């Protein structure tokens, strides 16, 4: 049976300091995050800025393949930059030259969407807090996109908990076709191309921000020679029981439906695979060229070659995978993917989106980012008689992702909402209740003075004894509200909490 598909999204945001052309993006990112943390302290909240990230279990260089590839460049962990843990269980930090929000672990795609939206709200509040500190005329602006249009990309990564018993080779064989063809709904759209040797004129518009940057089928890297399937083997959990599939090939979405579908379809697909119900894998002959082709094919009609000699369009492959997942869902224990209601929601949108893509993609301007963008840009282009490579379209492309409510074009194109503002508001401060993120976030809220560090799989306390006390959380599904809610709420202090946890 499938293990709980605990999941989450981490997003690196683009950042600009307006009217300060020489601003350093690392300093700007640090300032943005510190401004937010400072605003929480000023509002009487817990002093989260003090909390350190605990790097003890970070092993990003570990490869899921039995034989690590020697030429792989291991990602480095930066420890000297701003690095905070929030009371909602998220990590908010500077990664390379970007502010990154890693949402807390969630038990369903809908919950993970809610915490992704909380991340957007946190970034918006950070911008407002920074605005109060910056000199007159300057402004920090944050973009939820994945490329600067000049060949530099930054990621929006998904994480899914997998059973260690599932052979990694099966994940590669089965998941590749889904990751390549789900671009039909995960794409955030982009004017032009950033693929080496290709000019914008040749690719007026494509479905995704990210496809241009993928060069390998399988690998460990995230910053160069990016692979469709990333092999980082760092489960942040009991490694004898679990893996974590780190998916780096998605776009950051502004559309809630797109985020839900990206996470929900992938979580259900992986659960089906673990249940042994996936059937024969759909094997693409050439996954990397297919990744680029799907992104560039606005007709949605290009056939992709399959290894058995036949071929199918990305849409046909998605229909096939959707049919397999919905058949599996009829008899599966859907608790592993967050229950029946969420599964119905995911399958309903999945089917609706595939139908729309088949009939007339324009119908999906309220559900898919790339369609919303394409429809808007095309109309703007016609009105003003512009070529696709006009800087005004490139500017609109960036501005679609501007998180500010006024200038951000995504707020104006009529995207469908799935999560209400109150639900987002509570996710800004409170952790998810049904994963270990609950324990992390609640400990920070209740005992801010005594929690000195936290990590995905531990919380470290200083309760005045001779040594720090580390509470390991190697089970992502434990430490929930049902499990520890009363304990954390009723313990008068952290020392007492630790004593009760031990008893």
């Amino acid at each position: 049976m499938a293990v709980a598909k605990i999941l989450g999204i981490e997003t690196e945001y683009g950042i600009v300091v307006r009217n300060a052309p020489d601003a350093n993006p690392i300093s700007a990112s640090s300032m943005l995050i510190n401004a937010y943390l400072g605003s929480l302290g000023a509002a009487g909240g817990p002093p989260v800025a003090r909390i350190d990230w605990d790097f003890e279990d970070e092993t990003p260089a570990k490869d899921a393949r039995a034989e690590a590839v020697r030429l792989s460049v291991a990602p480095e962990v930066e420890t000297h930059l701003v690095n905070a843990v929030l009371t909602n269980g998220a990590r908010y930090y500077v990664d390379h030259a970007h502010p990154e929000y890693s949402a807390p672990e969630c038990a369903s795609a809908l919950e993970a969407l809610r915490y992704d939206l909380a991340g957007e709200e946190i970034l918006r509040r950070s911008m407002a807090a920074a605005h109060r500190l910056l000199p007159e005329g300057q402004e920090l602006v944050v973009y939820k996109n994945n490329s600067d249009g000049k060949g530099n990309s930054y990621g929006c990564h998904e994480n899914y908990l997998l059973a260690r018993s599932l052979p990694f080779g099966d994940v590669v064989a089965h998941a590749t076709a889904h990751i390549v063809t789900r671009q039909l709904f995960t794409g955030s759209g982009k004017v032009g191309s950033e693929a080496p040797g290709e000019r914008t004129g040749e690719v007026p518009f494509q479905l995704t921000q990210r496809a241009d940057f993928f060069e390998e089928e399988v690998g460990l890297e995230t910053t160069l020679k990016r692979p469709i399937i990333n092999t980082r083997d760092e489960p942040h959990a009991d490694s004898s029981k679990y893996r974590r599939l780190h998916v780096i090939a998605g776009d950051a979405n502004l559309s809630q439906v797109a985020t839900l579908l990206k996470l929900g379809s992938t979580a259900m697909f992986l659960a089906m695979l673990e249940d042994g119900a996936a059937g024969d894998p759909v094997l693409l002959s050439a996954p990397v060229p297919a990744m680029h082709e799907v992104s560039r094919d606005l007709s949605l009609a290009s056939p992709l070659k399959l290894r058995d000699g036949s071929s199918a369009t990305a849409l046909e492959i998605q229909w096939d995978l959707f049919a397999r997942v919905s058949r599996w869902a009829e008899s599966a224990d859907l608790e592993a993917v967050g229950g029946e209601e969420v599964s119905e929601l995911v399958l309903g949108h999945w089917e609706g989106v595939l139908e729309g893509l088949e009939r007339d993609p324009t119908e999906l301007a309220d559900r898919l980012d790339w369609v919303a963008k394409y429809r808007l840009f095309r109309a703007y282009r016609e009105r003003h008689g512009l070529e696709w490579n006009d800087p005004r379209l490139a500017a609109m492309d960036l501005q679609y992702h501007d998180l500010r409510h006024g200038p951000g074009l995504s707020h104006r194109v009529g995207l469908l909402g799935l999560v209400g503002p109150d639900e987002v508001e509570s996710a800004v401060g409170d952790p998810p209740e049904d994963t270990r993120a609950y324990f992390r976030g609640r400990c920070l809220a209740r005992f801010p003075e005594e929690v000195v560090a936290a990590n995905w799989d531990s919380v470290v306390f200083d309760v005045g004894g001779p040594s720090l006390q580390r509470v390991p959380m190697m089970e992502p599904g434990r430490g929930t509200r049902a499990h520890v809610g009363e304990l954390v709420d009723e313990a008068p202090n952290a020392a007492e909490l630790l004593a009760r946890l031990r008893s």
Partner: protein
Amino acid sequence: MAEREQKRKVAPQREGGESVEEEPAVTETGDKLKAEMDDLLDEIDDVLETNAEDFVKSYIQKGGE
């Protein structure tokens, strides 16, 4: 989820070499949609970056991840 209606689409496997329609599948239909889009274009004209070229040029990010 036994009650879920199965609307499985037949996904015909194309054989290689079939010609591909070049026309983009995205087509605008209906006057209402057109009018809505006109309103949207009017609205966003007010918020668009005033100097698109400079804005695009200055938007430079370091790679991440």
